[in-house]
């Protein structure tokens, strides 16, 4: 069966140990986590946790059921297959030799990135976008020389009905 990427978004109790319950469920049952992102919502007692995982249909169904079974998980939404917006933020530290600096800035401009730190040898740029945009950018920057990268993982919300 085909293994597809799925974005699961869930509301959980904002309590110590909840992340560990979710992460432990994935590791204990051999499911994989491609990315995971968690932070408080408007209600300080509730956090939103967004997980990107891979699996065939029965596995994804089982993951959703298992997550729902956790006492601290309030609700699980599967985003994949629905109309939703997703974004990821990345900080990229690029090796900026004098002859490359203009090109880096040009690329950053095209991708609407912000330069957040400039040093003698490195530029750090900030980018937000979906996965396609981020990988396109990384492909362009790779030949120039990426020193480090920090990505948040995807956050997602359903679109409102038009």
């Amino acid at each position, binding site marked *: 069966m085909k293994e597809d990427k799925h974005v699961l978004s869930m509301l959980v109790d904002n309590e110590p140990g909840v992340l560990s*319950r979710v992460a432990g469920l994935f590791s204990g049952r051999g499911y994989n986590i491609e990315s995971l992102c968690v932070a408080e919502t408007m209600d300080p007692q509730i956090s939103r946790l967004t997980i990107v995982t891979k699996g065939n249909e029965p596995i994804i169904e089982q993951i959703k059921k298992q997550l729902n079974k956790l006492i601290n998980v309030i*609700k699980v939404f599967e985003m994949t297959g629905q109309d939703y917006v997703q974004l990821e933020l990345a900080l990229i530290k690029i090796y900026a030799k004098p002859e490359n600096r203009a090109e880096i800035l040009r690329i950053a401009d095209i991708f609407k990135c912000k330069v957040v730190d400039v040093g003698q040898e490195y530029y750090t740029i900030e980018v937000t976008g979906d996965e396609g945009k981020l990988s396109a950018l990384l492909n362009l920057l790779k030949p120039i020389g990426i020193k480090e990268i920090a990505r948040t993982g995807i956050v997602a919300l359903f679109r409102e009905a038009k």
Partner: protein
Amino acid sequence: MELTGAQILMLMLKSEGVDTIFGYPGGVVLEIYDELSKTDIRHILVRHEQGAVHAADGYARAGGRVGVCLVTSGPGATNTVTGIASAYCDSIPLVVFTGQVPTHLIGNDAFQEVDIVGITRPCTKHNFLVKHTEDLPRIIREAFYIARSGRPGPVLVDLPKDVGSKKIKFEMPGEVKLRSYNPTYNPNIRQLHKVMELVEKAERPMIFAGGGVILSKGSKELTEFAKKTQIPVTTSLMGLGAFPGSDPLWLGMIGMHGTFRANMATGACDLMIAVGVRFDDRVTGKTDTFASQAKIVHIDIDPTSIRKNIPVTIPVVGDCRIALENLSRLADEAKFGDLQKKRKPWLDQIVDWKSMRPLDYQQDRSGPIKPQYVIEKLYELTKGEAIITTEVGQNQMWTAQYYHFERPSRFITSGGLGCMGFGLPAAIGAQVACPGDLVVDVAGDGSIQMNIQEMATAVQHKLPVKIVILNNGYLGMVRQWQELFYGKRYSHTCMSCAPDFVKLAEAYGAVGLRATQPSEVVPVLKEGLFSSETVIMDFRVASEEGVYPMVPAGAPITEMLLV
């Protein structure tokens, strides 16, 4: 009213209806034990914390209530883990209170500190670390509610020392409301109508019932539905007793050591109604070929059990008892035509399978004693009415095969985890729950030694449990696998040095009996079972007897090794 955490704990236990605790004191729970001594709650002092949890498990199953344990921090807490894991696999409602070092020391690697909430996260239904005495009443309420509702399971509550000693103003908490936990009890009636349509059409239906039927107290409803629709019934190990073992529709147990007819029926049926089961690998064997001709209906209160291992035609999420009650009602209106005539070919086929390959063994008069013979005589002498606990391995399987349980909650075994050392403490717990009943632990010489220290618990609390040891000098089930699949190389399965169990019983202040000849089996059983004391009966049985039928792990269950 100003009360300490320990006093609040006692009040809350009383309000949850707790009258018995299995436990073991220690440094950080002194405060709680001090308060406990001022109440009328009965405390069963065990000899090892694992014993406390298994005993609470046996108590919960035999008595149909939540079992409660109280132990100290560190090693006291880690010793409970095996028992908790076993209860989790078998969905047994327990609340385990563990002591913890004072909150200001948590994380400092303090003396007898362990992160028991972290350790037990994957083997509890839920667990709590109580950080403030103010939260204690609510958490205890929630712990009991979570343990007993939905698919039951163990809940652990970790109590730091200072939480128990701090005084606060106490108010009794109200009903539990958890926004994220609402088990579905009432099944979707449209789904049940669909199930009935399949039942009407089916030529070769069977019911496969499991522990969920017993936990939901749905045995009566199961029996009624099966009889009304003339559908034969098999159960998993956990389901034994959910359907009377003497009924003509009874197929015997399914799976690796299931009966020939139950496994053949599984292969041939065109409809399987699975109730309160989780399609464990010991049941299904090779999943691709399991019930391959059948449409499968799966009724369970836990949605994760459905479509986890086996594809299902109609899923029904809900309480097994309520679902069966509804199905029974729907069956009254169903159009079966002449049901007897319709079922005859199928039921005849099952009778054929039964007579072709019944459960069988040969007991020679001159010996050695066959273990199956001991169980059969145990069954006859107790008329199938005793509460039987088992250890794990051959003793467990022979009990499942040869003790024909008539009623639910009479067979108490570590089914999912398969935990050796379970039987004796579980028997102690069952005896506490049912003081008037005969409670027997069927053990092997290997597994009885895993928690033999609980003999002292039984004697101290005057619990007259009976221990039947099928003593073959081997770790029998592992030896059987070595015989069949590892060229008879008995690597470290021979227990050539074991205690003299008769003397051991006497050393504990119990009664010890022994049988070495077939002719001694019945007299020893009679003397032991009808004694008013704790008794060990040591049956020296044939050393290399195997459990049959047997389906090799991962093979289709219709491909059985017969004797």
